[in-house]
């Protein structure tokens, strides 16, 4: 207990998280490529789509490991950043839903690339949350 309490906030777990994130991204883009390449063979679709999902569970596990051992203020900042990001996405989706309700408001969103916008959004929310504790 004592040793654990006094252990420095080591970033030793970060490399594993980066590797998991990298492997996930590779598997995701391989799956996307595979969906195009093997599209005619429909029974392969689910298998190809599941490939990044398996790696995703590993990534989530690594994120949890990092969050459990991270400095408690950092944990609080990440929590606030997540809350901000979630509400921003909720507001954006509700706004887009309203636009679709208008007669000429039909919008076609590139769902396959929308996830990419979430990364900088989370970064902005993280910086906003961190600012309060500086």
């Amino acid at each position, binding site marked *: 207990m004592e040793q654990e309490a006094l252990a420095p906030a080591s970033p030793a777990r970060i490399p594993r998280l980066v590797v998991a994130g990298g492997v996930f991204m590779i598997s995701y883009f391989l799956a996307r490529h595979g969906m195009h390449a093997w599209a005619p063979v429909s029974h392969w679709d689910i298998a190809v789509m599941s490939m990044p999902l398996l790696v995703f569970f590993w990534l989530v596990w690594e994120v949890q490991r990092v969050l459990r051992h991270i400095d*408690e203020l950092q944990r609080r900042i990440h929590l606030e950043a997540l809350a901000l990001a979630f509400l921003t996405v909720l507001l954006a989706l509700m706004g887009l839903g309203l636009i679709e309700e208008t007669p000429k408001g039909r919008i076609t969103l590139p769902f396959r690339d929308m996830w990419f916008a979430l990364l900088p959004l989370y970064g902005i929310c993280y910086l906003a949350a961190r600012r309060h504790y500086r």
Partner: protein
Amino acid sequence: MIVRNDLRERRAEHDWSQGELAERLGVSRQTINAIETGKYDPSLELAFRIAKLFKARIEDVFKP
């Protein structure tokens, strides 16, 4: 409820920098700074560790 603390004074008595204190407690320097400026109230576990490090009672370091 606002919780005040005399962490800065106690740290100064020991002539520790924020970084040194952070290292002793196993937290980041930003955490120490946020506690000292009253922007962040530490967890009960960290509050006990701080009190123990300064050989004080928790209610002497943190006051409502």
